[in-house]
């Protein structure tokens, strides 16, 4: 029963957002093509920038006021727990990030073998940024600015951490994804439609 609701939310929102997802993937693929002769650090930086921006953009589109009014009205009236709704609505921008980075790294790998560590780190960093952006969109104005700033910083921090032992970097981002998802769930639970 719970799975059906999550699946319905994800597929409906993905269907609505398909053009934006395709655009993000196209832009990332183009960026990878333009960076095809760059070294590993340039490729990682580019993946982080474009993957993070794609996730933040889709997250902001998802929660933009008035854009999915009928869908959001159905979801807010539905007997769903806050964490179910948070997971389901987070899946869409995360899918955008996965699609965009997959496009980027597939094109990059066509010209030069992509490092698995770099792929994983870029995915986790962009995922963290996306979740922070989602939390920002359901928070008050002061918290929103701070969360968006953290979202942008998530990508930059991943680039700096790439020089550290990769297990440390990936471990840090796995924890940050979990924390960001919890943060988003709590922000969604506190969300006041009258604000």
């Amino acid at each position, binding site marked *: 029963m719970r799975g059906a*609701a999550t699946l319905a939310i994800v597929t409906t929102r993905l269907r609505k957002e398909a053009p934006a997802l395709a655009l993000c993937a196209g832009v990332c693929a183009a960026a990878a093509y333009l960076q095809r002769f760059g070294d590993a650090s340039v490729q990682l930086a580019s993946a982080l920038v474009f993957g993070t921006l794609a996730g933040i953009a889709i997250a902001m589109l998802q929660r933009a006021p008035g854009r999915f009014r009928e869908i959001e009205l159905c979801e807010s009236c539905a007997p769903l727990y806050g964490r179910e709704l948070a997971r389901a609505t987070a899946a869409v921008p995360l899918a955008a990030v996965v699609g965009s980075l997959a496009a980027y790294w597939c094109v990059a790998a066509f010209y030069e073998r992509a490092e698995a560590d770099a792929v994983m780190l870029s995915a986790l960093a962009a995922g963290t940024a996306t979740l922070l952006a989602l939390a920002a969109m359901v928070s008050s104005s002061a918290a929103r600015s701070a969360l968006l700033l953290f979202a942008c910083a998530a990508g930059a921090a991943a680039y700096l951490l790439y020089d550290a032992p990769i297990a440390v970097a990936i471990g840090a981002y796995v924890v940050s994804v979990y924390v960001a998802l919890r943060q988003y769930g709590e922000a969604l639970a506190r969300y006041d439609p*009258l604000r």
Partner: protein
Amino acid sequence: MREAVCERRGRTLAGPATLSVEECEHLAYACESAESARVLAMMAAGLVRRSSGTLFVAAFDPCIQPVQAKRITGFVPHEAVPHAFASFTRYAEYRAALWGLPVAASVVRARSILAKLEGVHEQFAYPLAGALLAAPRLLVLDRPQAVYAAQILQAAGKCAIFSTHAGERDAERFAERIAEPV
């Protein structure tokens, strides 16, 4: 609800309201303004937290048990919401999935409810059919039009109906129309 109030940033948006709606009862509640009618309806449907007072939908407090309260409540907004779905069937399927209802049977039920709403503009009929899909015990209507009262009553069946209105006149008109024999 008893002395239920909704305040934000020091401003009272709705209430204090003390009222009760029994099973199969219809209550048209007059509010001071359109905004307070909207907020009161959203409070009754568990979409907005109250600031003080008590509110129960059957045995459930929407602040403490929102899932249980929403399961037995249907809400219809006043504003026309742009359609996000390609067809009414898709909309019914979506609502059925969110409420954990069997999809095929829900689509059939949705269509039968829609048939009872003949003459009602689809901007209002679709959300109303969606709200009644899960056979709620309480239907909350935000400033419904009195001209649709008969169709609403026919579609709602034995469901309790609580409607908010932006003024005494609107509430009286709706109450008169809904009390007319079908």
